């Protein structure tokens, strides 16, 4: 994963343009007045710590992609590799790529998302992501044991989602 992240955000400008387009879509206009307390972090970085300026979060989970608004019904879910989007009050949208982890929505409208690995979408080098996907595919064809095969499949799924998220 670390190899995927480049400190040079090459696609930053391109992403910035799409951001502006998406931000105009009013997702959470009907949001309840209670704000959510949003925590999102990975072992190496904390992106949001009980932030209250978030109105919507789109999360990829194994039970399907879910959008969390304030006062969402309490639920637990398991994160799936993919793109996680955070819509802030001021109209900013932050996109992240996550690998796996857990999602908790509690009764008091607090949301905790813990990702095993997460980074900002603009920090990802698309070239590295694609070559990572190819490498993972080679790994799968070279795999001889079940464990290796599963590992390679997980890597492929992750890289596919990263590439998809960039596009």
């Amino acid at each position, binding site marked *: 994963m670390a190899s995927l992240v480049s400190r040079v955000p090459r696609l930053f400008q391109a992403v910035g343009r799409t951001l502006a387009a998406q931000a105009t879509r009013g997702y959470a206009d009907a949001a309840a007045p209670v704000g959510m307390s949003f*925590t999102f*972090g*990975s*072992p*190496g*970085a*904390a992106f949001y*710590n*009980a932030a209250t300026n978030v109105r919507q979060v789109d999360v990829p989970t*194994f*039970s399907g992609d879910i959008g969390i608004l304030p006062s969402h*019904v*309490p*639920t*637990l*879910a*398991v994160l799936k590799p993919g793109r996680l989007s955070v819509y802030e009050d001021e109209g900013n949208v932050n996109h992240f790529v996550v690998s*796996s*982890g*857990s999602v*908790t929505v*509690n*009764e*008091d409208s*607090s949301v*905790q*998302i*813990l990702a*095993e690995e997460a980074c900002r979408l603009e920090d990802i080098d698309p070239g590295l992501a694609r070559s990572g996907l190819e490498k993972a595919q080679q790994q799968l064809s070279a795999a001889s044991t079940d464990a290796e095969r599963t590992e390679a499949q997980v890597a492929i799924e992750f890289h596919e989602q990263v590439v998809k998220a960039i596009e």
Partner: protein
Amino acid sequence: MLSRTALFVPTCTQVRGMATLKEIRNRLKSVKNVQKITQSMKMVSAAKFSRAERELKPSRPYGTGANAFYDKVDIGQDLEKPKHLLVTMGSDRGLCGAMNSNINKLLKNYVKDNPDKEVKFITLGDKARQALYKTHPGYFMLTFSEFGRQPASFSDAADVAESIINSGYEFDVGQIYFNEYKSVVSYSLRPVPLHSLQSVSEADSLAVYDSLDAEVIRSYQEYQLASVLYACMKETNCCEHSARMTAMDSATKNAGEMIDKLTLTFNRTRQAVITGELIEIISGAAAL
């Protein structure tokens, strides 16, 4: 031939226990060497500590985030149930304050206070095993060493979580004990409840959570366990290095004081020797 064994060997210590110059010089030298060692240990710990503290910052919200669910769902633990599991986090190396002895004391007392329960330990760090394995061999379920030398990573936590899950020990009551870092000079032992999959799925207040199936709860619980362990490991790392840094700092300071005192005594003794010699010479010359 008969050889005579010396029964009485006159030792050369002075009558009033005054140290000779040579003795003081040797002692001074060894104290200086000790000071050099503690000084460099302090430097090493300081470097490791600054890294551990930097890494602790993002892991704090991670840990509180992982525990938030358990706090809110309020899963009760019935202490009267028979199977207990204690996970403790210490360190491999000593010279880091009371960190490890706090844990060892706690484990000993826990066993003493719960004589009719089945108590198992999982210990991270060699110190707890070294101290307790002889007296409590039957209690140890798993021990992890090589803990604290390198900063803990998430995969370490995942390894520990996996071995707890795969151990097959169906505990009713679980606790993680670790030292929580407060400041460079302060840390305290803190418990965090450890829940088994069964106790989570049987919790009453879980009913308010929507669209749950057994698979989701299982994966969620496993991941949460690793997250909680990870946060505790980071706290422990930070404590270890800060405690060692403080300990080595005061050791260096004490050695400095000792060196000052010894130097003073050394100079005084030297003066006394010179004065003694002068008196001998002068009185010798006067006698002629």
